[in-house]
């Protein structure tokens, strides 16, 4: 048998869900075992970073990097793996767009430390001790990675070959990627073009089987999920529940709408758009008849409706803030203020 290919899976600022997703391919794990040797995967394997650093460049066939870049260690390991890997995949929405931890980009290190190490109800820290990157202890010195002011996506710090969105990526998507790599290794098949997003190009609504109002769609009032009992058959948006399916990439099998809950966009925006929330707002404006010249709602009524979305950031950018255009606006505002 030919030599096994080498794979690595690492987590930056993520939750481990992407690692569990790899376990969720179940029996396919044994296929992977047949062709691949895992050289680095801290959740389940004992390889240490020093061993990776000692490897020749490009000697790892594929690295899957999940989690965002929150601190200097995340960035360092991303750079090491990039150097040592032929193919680097941004695995999951945190690596691709910043993910949920990316919501922290509305704040900064100072505020985070203030809340976490001081203001939280159970914290007992009268001297406001905070973690230090360099510290002398009686026995010697200790160091910690530096917590950055903002969250970065993987492709902001290294060159990324492929993107696999999803929080976490679905089993189907992973199987697709595993097959592509396996075919490449065993049969010499071509890999997808560099920069490709390994996912569908459709929108979630295309794969959602809820009934939509076909003509004259109109929202009269916006509801939170807990305020009404949503009809399990009809489009949630038509019922006034903000579902961001129209702006979200298909591929999950519309899991949340199937559970009678709105999509929050974990697959990220569709191919055509960069700004997830902006794209959803355009979709929403047409639903609110904003772009229709025969709009029946007045400007005021529209604003009133919009204001019913109490938390636009959490509703439209729960997974993509670091990649959105908003980020710049938010940072600019901060700079101007301070």
């Amino acid at each position, binding site marked *: 048998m030919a030599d096994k290919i080498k794979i690595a899976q690492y987590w930056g600022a993520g*939750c*481990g869900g992407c690692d569990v997703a790899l376990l969720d391919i179940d029996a396919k794990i044994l296929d992977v075992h047949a062709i691949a040797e895992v050289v680095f995967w801290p959740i389940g394997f004992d390889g240490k970073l020093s061993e990776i650093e000692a490897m020749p460049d490009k000697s790892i066939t594929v690295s899957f990097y999940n989690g965002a870049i929150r601190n200097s260690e995340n960035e360092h390991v991303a750079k090491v793996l990039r150097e040592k890997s032929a193919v680097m995949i941004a695995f999951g929405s945190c690596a691709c767009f910043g993910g949920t931890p990316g919501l922290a980009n509305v704040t900064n290190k100072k505020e985070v430390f203030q809340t976490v190490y001081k203001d939280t109800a159970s914290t007992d820290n009268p001297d406001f001790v905070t973690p230090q990157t360099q510290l002398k202890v009686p026995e010697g010195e200790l160091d910690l990675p530096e917590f950055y002011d903002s969250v970065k996506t993987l492709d902001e710090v290294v060159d990324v070959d492929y993107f696999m969105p999803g929080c976490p990526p679905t089993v189907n998507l992973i199987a697709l990627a595993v097959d592509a790599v396996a075919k490449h290794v065993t049969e010499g098949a071509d890999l997808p073009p560099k920069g490709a997003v390994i996912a569908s190009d459709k929108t979630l609504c295309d794969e959602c089987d809820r009934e939509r109002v076909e003509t004259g769609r109109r929202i009269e009032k916006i509801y939170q999920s807990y305020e009404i009992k949503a009809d399990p058959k009809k489009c949630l948006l038509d019922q006034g529940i903000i579902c961001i399916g129209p702006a979200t990439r298909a591929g999950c099998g519309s899991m949340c709408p199937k559970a009678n809950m709105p999509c929050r966009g974990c697959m990220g925006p569709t191919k055509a758009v960069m700004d997830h929330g902006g794209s959803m707002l355009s979709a929403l404006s047409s639903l609110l008849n904003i772009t229709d010249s025969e709009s029946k709602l007045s400007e005021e009524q529209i604003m009133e409706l919009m204001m019913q979305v109490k938390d636009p950031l959490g509703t439209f950018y729960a997974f993509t803030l670091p990649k959105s255009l908003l980020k710049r606006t938010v940072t600019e505002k901060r700079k101007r203020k301070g």
Partner: protein
Amino acid sequence: MSGPIINDTPTKTTEKKITIDPITRLEGHGKIEIFLNDEGNVANAYLQVPELRGFERFCIGRHVQELPVLTNRLCGVCPAAHHIASTKALDAVFDAKPTETAKKLRELFYMGQYTHSHIAHFYALAAPDFVLGPSAPSNKRNVLGVVDAVGVDIGAEVIKHRSYGQKVQEIVGGRATHPCFGLPGGVSKQISEEERAQMEEMAKSCVEFGKFTIKLLHDVVLANQDYMGLVLNQDAYYLETYYMGMVDSDNKTNFYDGDIRVVDQEGKEVVKYKPSEYLDVIAEHVEPWTYMKMPFLKQVGWTGFTAGPSSGIYRVGPLGRINVCEGYTTPLAQAEYEALAKTVKDLGVTGPVHHTLAFHWARVIELQYATERMLELASDKSITSDDIRGEVNEPTEGVGICEAPRGTLIHHYASDKDGLCTKINMIVATTNNYAAINTSVIQAAKALIKNGEVSPGLLNKVEMAFRCYDPCNSCGTHALNGSPALEVNVRRADGSKLDTLRNF
């Protein structure tokens, strides 16, 4: 199958500092620094958690109804635990009483989580140390090595039943990793009779697999003198601490609901509290060499990394729960609990089990309980009722607590009248254990490394001291949240302004 490799040959080091980075087979990041003195003995050790994400900051300003979905992302290994604690916190915030059906569905879903999580930990993270041995070559010491050693058939059973746990969560909770069904006062989705029947079948199979796992633990670990030597090594793996865990009104373990009980080193009840009272019992200490906080019992106080009655350090998770409970409501788990109690008694131990490696035994008993409870709930035909949503009132403040696989999990939210989160505090399972874990690591390092002699196997035995806690540092490093007052211009991709949004 050749026998496990317990020991390897140490070599002499002249280094003053030994670094294990990253520590592995845990969920999340960590590194251990061990300092040696001039004689080559351990002066001190630190388990540093190098990361923080700061959910407690960026969840401020979010709509509280989104928190079960956002806080899922604290941890992809036990997202269900966060989803449940968060949903229960919403029950309290909205003063909403979940319906009977909703409660059963949440608990059924949650037993799926335990099945997945405890199987994953025992077979993928812990078993390599037991089946292959703590000193087996590091590139073999993993789940694939275990599969090679025990055979593909058993490997397939492990995979199948862990995935049943995931499947149950997916059916009830909408998704396995990062579920979405929790609403204040209920759940979003009714289940069909067909789904219920499917879950009943899976649960039956899981109960059998629970029995198999208990047998495996007996055959591989308890029957092996060398392992028992490790387990009973009081110099390396033994701490007399307080314990914490959730119990029902009969002091039987419950993962979903109940009061939280704390016992002392002798097993005597120190306090039993309701979720809303947690701030009377727990405070969190901060050290400058790690990003993770260290909770301790407020009434005892923080005295550093020591055990005993004068130190506020307590332990949670399987060992904590088995020490605070007076048994289980299901027969097979109860029988194994009695077997453990007898073994321990025969060894002359009275009161709580302080042997750190007994975590593993407690965990498989809990796996058995979770599968049995899953079967009870899945066999209950009333869970397909459409009565899944209770009344909801104006949002205020509330606390939700459940037992995560790794220990007591606390979510505490405050909301304004529009439902926007104004304050959030979370104390997660692994964080509760952090001070004890660090103490265990210091203890194991001191006991195992002498005269500067180290080996990969010895260092792995130091790692075993934390691994048995099944620490989930992803969970523990949540602390960060959103801008309280934000005004943003939303622009289209071409830069034209679409709208100005405010969250104030």
